[in-house]
């Protein structure tokens, strides 16, 4: 009588998620901000806003500009710093019925190690995302994700400090994202978040000034989706660890592109600003899609449009 429902559960490192949908870092607070607007029983996890070693005021305003098919942001990692965060914020995550993944940002390998070790030690935090790709801070925010050796160094250092799931968030603002992804996996990453925002800029032609307080920003939304799909496609060919695909996902069909390119899960960010009901809509429609196609799980379609995906491990020896 009871027919088996297709499963939407996925595994990212050691993280067992009921749904293949994460809420993107910096877009969703801790999730509590959205409780009255969205059904948080139907999300995989919330990736928290990045935290740094010291408090940060963030960038001057304006921090947001809406653009055709997307938006530019330059928040600048505003956060209270790890000490205050551990004392005042993290305890609030103890009884949340959804999983939260901590996000770590920094300006040196030592910064990442310091914050990662302390955050990962907390039971409230299910896993860690290393944000090595923030495009909106004055100094080295994005440098790590733009350099294979630095990526490897940060990831290896943090790997030694925690057994929790380590997701490394990569930048699209590089020549060869696959090379960076390869180093991150080799250094011990459990999963990769692909991609962070694409650098961009808008100018007010009336005032002749840049429209963002920070001058430059990160572009998100549907405008960057093809860039993100390609990045997942390329990364999936050189790594065997799970990929969390992200960049402009607004509908179920958008999410499907990422799974077919090789992502095990997807992350939804800017779309929450269009309609906070989008994540729950996507998981309901995903289940229907699997059902209609007679698929038992998300895993059965991961990478199926990626000709190099099945032999990804063979690439291991090729990277120079």
């Amino acid at each position: 009588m009871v027919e088996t429902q297709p499963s939407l559960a996925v595994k990212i490192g050691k993280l067992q998620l009921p749904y293949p949908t994460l809420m993107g870092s910096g877009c969703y607070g801790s999730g509590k901000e959205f409780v009255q607007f969205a059904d948080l029983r139907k999300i995989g996890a919330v990736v928290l806003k990045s935290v740094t070693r010291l408090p940060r005021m963030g960038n001057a305003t304006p921090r947001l500009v809406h653009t055709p098919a997307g938006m530019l942001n330059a928040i600048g990692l505003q956060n209270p710093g790890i000490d205050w965060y551990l004392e005042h914020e993290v305890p609030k995550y103890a009884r949340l019925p959804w999983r939260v993944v901590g996000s770590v940002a920094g300006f040196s390998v030592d910064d990442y190690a310091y914050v990662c070790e302390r955050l990962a030690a907390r039971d409230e935090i299910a896993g860690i995302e290393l944000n090595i790709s923030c495009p909106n801070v004055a100094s080295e925010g994005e440098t790590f994700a733009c350099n294979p050796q630095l990526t490897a160094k940060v990831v290896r250092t943090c790997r030694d400090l925690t057994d929790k799931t380590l997701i490394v968030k990569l930048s699209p603002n590089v020549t060869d994202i696959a090379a960076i992804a390869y180093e991150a996996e080799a250094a011990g990453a459990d999963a990769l978040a692909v991609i962070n925002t694409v650098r961009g800029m808008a100018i007010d032609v009336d005032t002749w000034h840049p429209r963002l307080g920070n001058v430059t920003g990160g572009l998100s939304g549907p405008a960057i989706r093809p860039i993100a799909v390609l990045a997942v496609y390329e990364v999936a060919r050189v790594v065997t660890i799970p990929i969390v695909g992200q960049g402009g996902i607004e509908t179920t069909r958008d999410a499907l592109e990422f799974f077919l390119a090789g992502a095990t899960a997807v992350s939804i960010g800017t779309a929450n600003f269009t309609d906070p009901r989008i994540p729950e809509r996507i998981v309901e429609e995903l289940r229907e899609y699997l059902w209609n196609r007679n698929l038992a799980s998300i895993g059965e379609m991961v990478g199926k449009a990626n000709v190099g995906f099945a032999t990804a491990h063979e690439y291991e020896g090729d990277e120079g």
Partner: protein
Amino acid sequence: MTTVDTPSRVHATLVTGRRELAPGVVLLELDAPELAASALPGQFVMAIPPSGESAATALGIYEAQMRCASLLFFVTGKRTRELSEMHVGERLDVVGPLGNGFDLSGSPRRVAIVAGGVGIASVLLPAQALIRARARVTLLYGARTASLLVEAQRFADAGCEVALATDDGTAGYHGYVTDLLERSRNHDLILACGPSPMLRAVARVAHQIGVRAQLSLEETFACGVGGCWGCVVPIVRTSAQAPSFPPESAGGSDVVHARICKEGPVFWSNELRW
């Protein structure tokens, strides 16, 4: 698993009225009983674009009575154009009410409400509430030109004294509305909503004439619910509205960035450090 509140502040509303008050100035009336019943003066909604093709738009709640909530806005871009082209009978989903509105406690007796342009959209509810509480309310209302001074009669009918100002002198005083505020006397509270330069002028004048002022700030929002930190303004750390945030910010400064959508959009002028 702990239960989670069901999404209670996303409302599927029906457009029951649409009026073009002036070229590019639109009033949408919505059948939205829950929103109308819960809206406080100065709160806003995020209107979800019916096409789903752009980010939601923050709009002040203009009026709320019985089952009807109305939104008044200027068409300034793609998102407001889409909303302006809605028809009676169509469905508009809105999230709200959001934000902290005007603080009308303390029984103010004589209140000046300063509205500039589209700022008029957020001040009818507080005007009505103050008049119900038997305060004398003066609306100082400025716009670029006479045709954009929409709904002035609505405020007069509600019991406000109304003084107008236009940049081009086509109606009322020829000059800035804040000049009118400067000449006014005997107010014990100022409420203001409008473009940033006007709000800064209101803050300056309020300080000069020694009257406390609450300013409803405008900024580009992404989430509108406090999740993204995109819409901040510097305020003094000791403010009751300061987010429970850093012990010391960079440089040991006494200011913190508060979210306009969450801790605001209304702030006391003397607490802003902008």
